[in-house]
């Protein structure tokens, strides 16, 4: 395999119902009206030379290389800025334009390093064009004024900017503006002095978010990945899927070597990726180095007790130990005394075999997944309302959205590539309502300003969504026809929500949202041609998480914002495969495809295929497993790629549960926090080694292709099969493709999915059925999956976690752009340059009251625990609410979070903890029972866990 060289059409695709037919160099081509001559030529297979044009950016017309001649026209227009007109006859290679190009190119080269061999990229668009245009020498010499002595900016950890190689084509500036929407780059100065500048400072201290779009756009060697400078150019590429957030960006892994000697040179975003369409963020683009980090554990290990040293053993010995241990526990304590936890970081195929191992080999339903602690209320709530546990739209839908209602999500940090799409649409004139306690970037940042920021107090989401619905119904803004035709329990709901106790005025004190703002926001949402709801864990991780999901579904149904593009209810999933791990039957009550274990017809499908009896009763959820462990009835646990000791709430309780177990098996990349309590450690594989599929937040099934073979000797799905086999239930597959075939044959929504179909289509969004053989971008068109949409009376019940005199502040948690979840991966990359520690953001008034200034070490305590971090006084916070991230185990943010959880799904209430904050003193340090130095001593690992 070689490098995949994408065709660059020069200017973006135009959509139009009208067409134009033109003749270019004798070839006739028909294109949508408004298409540039350059793009039409490319579609006809003719590449017009260009430097400032690329098809992800609007035409700019500055480089003057793409000049062409048009029959009957005057002069030599730039083909990038000239739209096709019907009947146009264009010549791209006349002597006149060739001569012009050669002269222009010669001028460029008169201020450009001559040493192409010494250039890191080895080949670039500039060099190729110099050859094509036939510039043999530069007549002007190189002694004139030039920029060749300009110095390189090495401050960004991932890429260099060498102004000497820059031709000031502005592609980087435009990529930063148009694609990423950060506007961190500009052309500084004028004329000959013009230089690309990150705002008058170096790259690291600039507004740059290191998404890599500028590097991707650069046609010369001016912006180059550091890894390319160090390793040289890659020799082959493999299209695969990013393993960070739920956006699920497609990348080309560009590598050198093959087999065990494979070395990743860079990850470049894939233009044909359905989720990202050629864009990326700092994590997926650059932060893949953890996969080859020295901390990675490469061999299986066992120990008798958690106080013993680890002992490296063979795979066979480790697997035998697991199988014998689990069977022994079951013999003594019953079939239900062991269980497994699957990971949203693993592939669908890996997750499927874990739940199969639990159901078929363990013989119980004690399987749960880390989605329990993030989006389980999404699955429950959306299934209840619409009949499908998934978002209703694809990402592209946002391009049709007029009003976005963003609730409890911070996309610019947590889902950056989708945030760029949102910002693009906002710059086109769409509006956004942000409901979030913090003033996140989408409230106001360069070129984006929210129509309303509703600073909803943590824990009062349902009161807020009810007030929105109340305004819509009592002001008659609801879509009566949609409700009558497509929904049920309409009158009951309308009567409920119209009650005066739901009014914004009545709820103002509870939610902290000024009633007038809420009313205006509700009107804006209800009257938009297309309004879409986007939400994150600020919705789900509450005691009323499921209720809130239903409340948002109510809003969308009330206003008829379902079943077409630009609308819907869209969860922004935290992890790469949260959607998929839930789809695969990871919950203790559901078989793959969200079918309850009590359904005999569904059990029958698997019983006949697997040759076992499946329990008709749901198994234990994660918190039940912990409680049962402490109670002495649950003694064996297999944990796949999730660091429950760091990511689950109330760390003390989790640790006590793990200590109570007889056999804890951890499969992970690193010796994580949970591994401190494990008896067997099985090394896992990184996404670069996996063969399978991830399903993103828009139900898009993307292929994950192995860039290199497993570095630990076995694939994770193989290990799971080996454990099951050793336990006496033979499980084996020839390849992950066979696992997907089994999934497809047993799960109706996946009926049309196979690796070969995915390879042919690029990706598909489930349901993929006979009726929708290419997948389903928009759900619930015409009717809901459950038939009629279910309106639900969403009674607001305040959380029991209230601030009081002792704990007067509310702590809420979130994520930051450069780090990911518990940081197991990103902390092992240069991303820590930007975020070396977690900080506690606190409102200036709350800080002043406590004598806290910026940079103070503070003590953060709740009724369950205490921890210490550095304070950041910030006007992003509302008074009364403090905020931190949980990327660094030293912080132990979950030491303070409580066991409150969603009433329906047990999703923990991470977003609301009553706390007190004080300046840390020696005394409070002693009271907290630990010195921070001690807790930071073992470099913690913890691969994969809580997803924001």
């Amino acid at each position, binding site marked *: 395999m070689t490098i995949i060289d994408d065709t660059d059409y020069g200017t973006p695709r135009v959509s139009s119902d009208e067409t134009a037919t033109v003749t270019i160099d004798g070839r006739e081509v028909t294109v949508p009206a408004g298409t540039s001559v350059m793009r039409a030529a490319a579609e006809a297979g003719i590449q017009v030379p260009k430097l400032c044009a690329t098809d992800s950016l609007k035409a700019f017309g500055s480089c003057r290389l793409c000049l062409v001649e048009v029959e009957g026209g005057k002069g030599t227009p730039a083909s990038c800025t000239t739209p096709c007109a019907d009947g146009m006859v264009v010549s791209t290679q006349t002597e006149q334009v060739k001569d012009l190009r050669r002269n222009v190119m010669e001028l460029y080269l008169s201020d450009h390093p001559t040493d192409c061999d010494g250039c890191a990229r080895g080949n670039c668009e500039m060099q190729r064009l110099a050859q094509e245009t036939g510039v043999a020498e530069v007549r002007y010499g190189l002694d004139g004024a030039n920029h060749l002595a300009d110095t390189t900016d090495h401050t960004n950890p991932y890429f260099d900017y060498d102004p000497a190689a820059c031709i000031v084509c502005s592609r980087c500036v435009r990529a930063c503006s148009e694609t990423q929407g950060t506007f961190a780059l500009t052309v500084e100065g004028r004329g000959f002095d013009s230089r690309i500048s*990150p705002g008058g400072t170096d790259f690291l*201290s600039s*507004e740059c978010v290191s998404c890599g779009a500028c590097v991707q756009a650069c046609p010369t060697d001016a912006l180059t990945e550091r890894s390319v400078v160090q390793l040289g150019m890659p020799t082959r590429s493999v299209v695969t899927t990013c393993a960070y957030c739920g956006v699920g960006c497609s990348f080309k892994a560009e590598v050198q070597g093959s087999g065990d000697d494979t070395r990743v040179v860079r990850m470049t975003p894939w233009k044909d990726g359905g989720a990202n369409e050629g864009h990326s963020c*700092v994590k997926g683009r650059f932060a893949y180095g953890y996969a080859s980090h020295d901390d990675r554990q490469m061999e299986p290990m066992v120990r008798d007790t958690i106080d013993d040293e680890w002992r490296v053993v063979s795979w066979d010995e480790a697997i035998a130990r697991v199988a014998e241990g689990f069977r022994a526990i079951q013999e003594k304590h019953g079939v239900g005394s062991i269980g497994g936890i699957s990971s949203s970081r693993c592939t669908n195929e890996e997750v499927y075999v874990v739940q199969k191992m639990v159901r078929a080999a363990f013989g119980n339903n004690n399987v749960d997944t880390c989605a329990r602690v993030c989006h389980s209320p999404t699955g429950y709530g959306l299934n209840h309302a619409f009949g499908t546990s998934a978002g209703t739209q694809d990402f592209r839908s946002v391009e049709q959205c007029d009003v976005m209602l963003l609730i409890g999500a911070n996309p610019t940090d947590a889902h950056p590539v989708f945030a760029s799409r949102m910002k693009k649409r906002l710059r086109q004139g769409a509006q956004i309502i942000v409901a979030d306690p913090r003033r996140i970037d989408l409230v106001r940042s360069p*070129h984006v300003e929210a129509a309303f920021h509703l600073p909803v107090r943590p824990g009062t989401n349902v009161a807020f969504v009810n007030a929105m619905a109340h305004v819509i119904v009592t002001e008659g803004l609801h879509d009566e026809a949609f409700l009558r035709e497509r929904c049920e329990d309409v009158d009951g709901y309308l009567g409920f929500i119209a009650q005066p106790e739901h009014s914004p005025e009545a709820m103002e004190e509870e939610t902290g949202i000024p009633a007038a703002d809420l009313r205006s926001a509700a009107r804006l949402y209800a009257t938009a041609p297309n309004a879409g709801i986007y939400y994150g864990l600020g919705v789900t991780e509450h005691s009323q998480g499921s209720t809130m999901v239903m409340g948002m579904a109510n809003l969308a149904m009330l206003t008829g914002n379902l079943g077409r593009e630009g609308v819907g209810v869209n969860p922004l999933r935290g992890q790469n495969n949260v959607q998929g791990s839930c789809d695969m039957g990871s919950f203790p009550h559901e078989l793959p495809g969200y079918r309850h274990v009590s359904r005999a017809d569904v059990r029958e499908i698997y019983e006949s295929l697997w040759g076992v009896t499946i329990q008709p009763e749901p198994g234990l959820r994660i918190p039940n497993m912990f409680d049962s462990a402490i109670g002495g009835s649950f003694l064996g646990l297999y944990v796949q790629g999730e660091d429950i000791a760091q990511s689950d709430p109330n760390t003390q309780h989790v640790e006590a549960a793990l200590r109570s177990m007889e056999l804890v098996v951890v499969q992970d990349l690193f010796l994580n926090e949970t591994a401190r309590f494990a008896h067997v450690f099985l090394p896992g594989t990184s996404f670069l080694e996996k063969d399978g599929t991830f399903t993103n937040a828009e139900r898009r099934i993307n292929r994950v292709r192995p860039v290199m073979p497993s570095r630990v000797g076995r694939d994770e799905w193989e290990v799971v099969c080996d454990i099951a086999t050793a336990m006496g239930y033979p499980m084996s597959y020839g390849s992950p493709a066979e696992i997907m075939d089994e999934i497809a044959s047993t799960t109706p929504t996946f009926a049309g999915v196979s690796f070969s179909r995915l390879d042919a289509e690029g990706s598909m969004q489930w349901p993929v059925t006979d009726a929708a053989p290419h997948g389903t971008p928009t759900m619930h068109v015409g009717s809901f999956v459950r038939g009629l949409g279910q309106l639900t009376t969403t009674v607001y019940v305040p959380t029991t976690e209230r601030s009081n005199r002792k704990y007067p502040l509310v702590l809420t948690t979130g994520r930051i752009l450069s780090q990911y979840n518990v940081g197991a991966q990103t902390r092992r990359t240069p991303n820590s340059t*930007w975020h070396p520690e977690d900080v506690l953001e606190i409102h200036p008034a709350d800080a002043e009251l406590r004598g806290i200034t910026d940079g103070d070490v503070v003590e953060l305590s709740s009724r369950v625990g205490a921890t210490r971090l550095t304070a950041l006084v910030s006007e992003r916070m509302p008074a009364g609410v403090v905020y931190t991230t949980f990327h660094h185990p030293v912080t132990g943010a979950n030491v303070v979070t409580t066991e409150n959880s969603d009433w329906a799904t047990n999703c923990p209430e991470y977003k609301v903890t009553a706390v007190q904050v004080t300046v840390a003193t020696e005394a409070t340090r002693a009271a907290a029972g630990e010195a921070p130095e001690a807790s930071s001593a073992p470099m913690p690992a913890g691969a994969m866990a809580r997803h924001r």
Partner: protein
Amino acid sequence: MRQRGPSPAPAPAPADPERAASVRSIAEELSGVRGPLLPILHEVVETHGFVHDDDVPVIAEVLNLSRADVLGVVSFYHDFRRTPPAAHRVALCRAEACQARGAEATYASAADRWAGSTEVEVGEVFCLGNCALGPSGTLDGTLHARLTPDRLDALTEEWAR
């Protein structure tokens, strides 16, 4: 204090809070006009003599632009000077009409006379619309016509040499 992640790093606190407040009030006052950035920058130069690097983030914040956006505009126009002006400023027209009437000699003489001066700076402009009476120029902002080296000397007699 620390970087907040590759979310846009916060601008450093301005060294001169009084100036920052003044620039902010200029920016806020003019933020409602159409295309507010140029009028704001003109007003900042008018009030403070030049655009300080620390003014850039203040203006960017008020207009909800990036710092790079503002810097790009500031650096494009020579009139948005980025260093404090000298006590006296000579700007001589070097466009075609004035050149035809001998502007170059006046310019050369002025440039030579105040070379290295910290009190007087000599700049060039291209047409003040006073072609019939060239060579033209401004002395501390006031238009003068028919400038010769001698007339220039006479007009600036009072200036420290």
